[in-house]
C-alpha cells in the first residue's frame, strides 16, 4: 500500500495476532451496533482505505454502489413499521424510518465487505498459517498445503478443459464432466508424489512450526489498546447503544460527553490499520 499520507513513525510491522485481533473486534462490534454514526464512520473510513490503496476502482465501485442503493430501497418494502409514511407501495406503507434503517444497514453491509477486503490485504497466507499453527499444529500445515495446491490445480484444470473442448466429440455438458473427472484423477496421482515427498522427510504428527514472526513489546501495547477499546464499547453498548431504536420514531442521536467518547473510540479502532505496514509483494525474479 503506497499511502499518500505518512504517519511516519507510527507505521511498523506488527505481529499477526494484534492485526487479527484488531480486525476481528472491528467486525464484531460493527455487526453488534447498528447505530447511524458508527456505521457511517465505518463506511467512510473503510472507503478511504480502499481508495487510497487503489483496491476499489472502476467496475467494482459501480457494482458496490448499485448494491448499496438496492439494500436501502428494499428494506422499507419488507419492514412496514414506522410513523412517517412517505407513500404507499402496492398497498403497504413505505416509511421514512424504514428507509433510514435501510441506510444504516446498507452502511453496515457495505463496510463489512470492504473491511474484509482490507483484512485480506493485510493478513497474508503466511500470517494465517502461523495464527492457526499455534493452537492447531496440523491445521496450519494443511492450510499451507492448500495454498500450495490451489493455484496448481486451477492451472491444470484450465488446461484440461481447453483440451476437452477441442478434442472431445461429446456434448458440452459431458465435456465439462469429463474435464472434472480427469482433473480429479490427475490431482490424486500428483498428490501421491507429494505424499511420498512428505514421508521421505519424516512427516509425523508431532512437529514444531517454523515462522519468522516475533511478538515484541509494541505488539503487546497494541493488544492492550485494542482490548481496552473493546471493553469500553461493550460497556457502552450495554448502557446505551442497545437501547437505540428506529421505530416508531427514530431516536435522536445523543452527542453528550460519554457518547462522543464512544464514537471517538470506535473511530480510533477503525483508523488503527493505517499503522500496520504490509510486507512487500514479491515480484517474479
Amino acid at each position: 500500500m503506497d499511502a499518500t499520507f505518512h504517519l511516519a513513525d507510527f507505521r511498523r510491522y506488527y505481529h499477526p495476532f494484534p492485526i487479527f485481533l484488531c480486525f476481528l473486534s472491528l467486525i464484531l462490534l460493527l455487526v453488534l451496533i447498528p447505530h447511524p454514526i458508527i456505521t457511517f464512520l465505518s463506511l467512510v473510513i473503510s472507503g478511504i482505505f480502499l481508495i487510497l490503496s487503489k483496491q476499489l476502482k472502476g467496475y467494482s465501485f459501480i457494482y458496490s454502489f448499485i448494491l448499496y442503493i438496492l439494500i436501502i430501497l428494499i428494506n422499507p418494502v419488507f419492514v412496514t413499521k414506522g410513523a412517517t409514511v412517505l407513500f404507499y407501495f402496492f398497498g403497504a406503507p413505505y416509511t421514512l424510518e424504514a428507509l433510514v434503517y435501510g441506510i444504516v444497514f446498507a452502511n453496515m453491509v457495505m463496510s463489512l465487505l470492504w473491511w474484509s477486503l482490507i483484512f485480506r490485504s493485510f493478513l497474508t497466507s503466511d500470517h494465517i498459517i502461523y495464527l492457526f499453527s499455534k493452537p492447531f499444529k496440523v491445521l496450519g500445515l494443511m492450510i499451507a498445503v492448500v495454498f500450495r495446491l490451489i493455484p496448481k490445480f486451477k492451472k491444470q484444470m484450465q488446461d484440461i478443459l481447453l483440451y476437452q473442448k477441442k478434442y472431445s466429440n461429446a456434448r458440452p455438458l459431458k465435456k465439462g464432466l469429463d474435464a472434472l473427472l480427469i482433473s480429479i484423477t490427475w490431482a490424486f496421482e500428483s498428490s501421491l508424489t507429494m505424499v511420498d515427498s512428505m514421508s521421505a522427510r519424516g512427516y509425523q504428527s508431532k512437529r514444531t512450526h517454523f515462522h519468522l514472526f516475533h511478538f515484541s513489546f509494541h505488539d503487546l501495547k497494541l493488544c492492550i489498546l485494542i482490548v481496552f477499546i473493546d471493553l469500553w464499547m461493550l460497556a457502552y453498548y450495554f448502557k446505551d447503544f442497545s437501547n437505540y431504536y428506529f421505530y416508531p420514531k427514530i431516536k435522536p442521536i445523543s452527542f453528550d460527553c460519554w457518547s462522543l467518547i464512544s464514537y471517538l473510540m470506535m473511530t480510533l479502532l477503525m483508523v488503527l490499520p493505517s499503522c500496520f505496514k504490509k510486507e512487500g509483494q514479491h515480484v517474479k525474479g
Partner: protein
Amino acid sequence: MLKVENLQFRYPKESTFLLSDLHFEINDGEFLLVIGTSGSGKSTLLRCLKPELQPFGERTGKITYANESLEKLNSCDIGFVFQDPDDQMVMDKVWHELAFGLENMNMPVDQMKHRVAEIVQYFKLQEIYDCPVDQLSSGQKQIVNLAAAMAMNPKILLLDEPTSRLDPFMAKQFLQFLKEIHDDFHTTIIMVEHRFEEVLPLSQKILWLDQGKAAAFGVKEKVLEALIHQEHPLHLALPEYMKLTKTALLTDKWTAHTYIQDHHWKVNPFLPLAKRGIFLQIKELNLEYDRHRVLKDLSFDLCEGEFFCLLGANGSGKSTFLRHLAFAFGRKSSIYYKHTPIDKAMNKKIVLLPQNPQVLFAHDTVEEELSGLERVEVIDQWLKQFHLDGQRHQHPYDLSGGQQQLLALIKLLLLKPKLLLLDEPTNGIDASMKQVLGEILTDLKQQGITILCVSHDLEFCAAFADRCGLLFDGKIEAVEATREFFKNNLFYTTSLGRLFRWLNPRILLAKDVTEDE
C-alpha cells in the same frame, strides 16, 4: 558402508520378481550411478533403499548401513529427491519448503532459522527465498528440492532422475550443486539417470540394472567397458562420443577431445534437404502471458510435410506459441493457411501433444480410451505399431512416461490431423524410447503430416528434424536446415558437435563419422 545382500522384490500378485539377486556395496562418500532401460527396476531399487518409501510387496534380503539394519536410520539421514520438480513440493513458499523437513524433526525454531539461513546462502537462494513456489522455474524448483533434502544433513542422498524434466542448462546447474555437495560434505550419493553423459565425471561407481538383475557393478570404466562391448538397447543412452570411440576410458569430455584430435576420421555423406511448399504462415504474431509480452511480431513459415524443431530456453515462450497455434483461429490469430486466416475447420486439423499427456486420459483402460473413435482394426494397427498391444487392459496412469505419450499420440492421430505439434516430447523418457518416437514421427512425416516440435533435446533435434529455429526475444531466429543451424552455433550444439568443430561443424551425431583406419 551401505551393503545390499541378496535383495529380491516383487509386487503383490505378480509372479515375476522385479528385482532379484542384487548384491553390491558402496563405501561412505561414494557416488553411485544406476543405469538401465525403462522398467529394469531402478526406481524400485531406490525406494527399497529408503524405509519410508519401501514399496508394498514381498521383499527378501538384507540392506545394512554401517553393519546395522537400514531401518535403524532416521528419516533425516537418507535424503530423497524425486523426478518431478513440481509434484514433490509441499509448501507454498520457498522458505517454508526448506524448513518442512526440519519441522518434522521437531527442531527448535532458533536452530531452524540458523539452518535455513545457512542453506539459503549455500544454494544461492537469496533472491527467491520469499517467493511463492508456483512462480519458480523448473530448474529453480529442483534446486530448492535439493536444498530441502540437504537441510536435514543426510548421510545418504538418493536421487530419482532429478534432471529429466529440466532443460540442458538447468540440468548442468543442478549437477554443479550436486558436485559441490559431494566434494564438500562427502555424502554418499546414489543417482538414477537416463541422460548420464553429464553425470559420468561426477560418479565413481556404476550399477547397470537389466531386468532387475545386476548386469554389471563396479568402477565406472569397467561397467562402461562391459556395456560398450555388448549389443544392448542401453547402448543408445551412452554419450555420443563414447558410441564413436568405443572406449570406456574417456569418462569426461576433456580426455575425449584429446582422443579425437589424435585420430583420423571420415565424414559420412549428409542427406540434402528436400524442397517443400509452404503449409502455414504466421505473420507478426504478438502474444502476452501473465502481462509479459512474450512474442513480439513473430513471423514464420512452416513448410508442408516437414519436421521442424523449435529450440529455446525455458520461459522463452515456446509453450505459449504452441498453444496459440493449437487453439487460435480466425482473423486475429495471425495464422494463415494458403494466404487466408485459418478457420475453425482447418484448426481442427491441428493437434497438440501436451507436455503432460495425462490431461487427455479420461478412461480406466487403454482400450476404453481409444474405443469409439475409429474402427477396431485401425485401432489395433496403431496399438501394434506403437508396441502398446500388451497394455490394452492397463490403466493409462500405470503406463510408463513414454508409453503414455504414445497413447496420447494415438488418440490425436485418430483425428487425422494435418499438423502435429509436440511440446517437449522427450522429457523424461529413456534413449531407446526416444529412438522409437523419432522413428514414428519420421514415418508420420512420410505419410504427409507436418510436424512442429518444441524441444531442448539437441541430440533428438539433430537426429530427426529437417529444419530448426531458435526462439529468442519473442521472435524465431536462425531458421535453417538442421545441419546449417547447428553449424553456426558455438554453444548451442550437440556435445559431439563441439568435439568435432575443427573437422566439420556439420557433424552432430555418432552416425556422421567413422574412424579412418
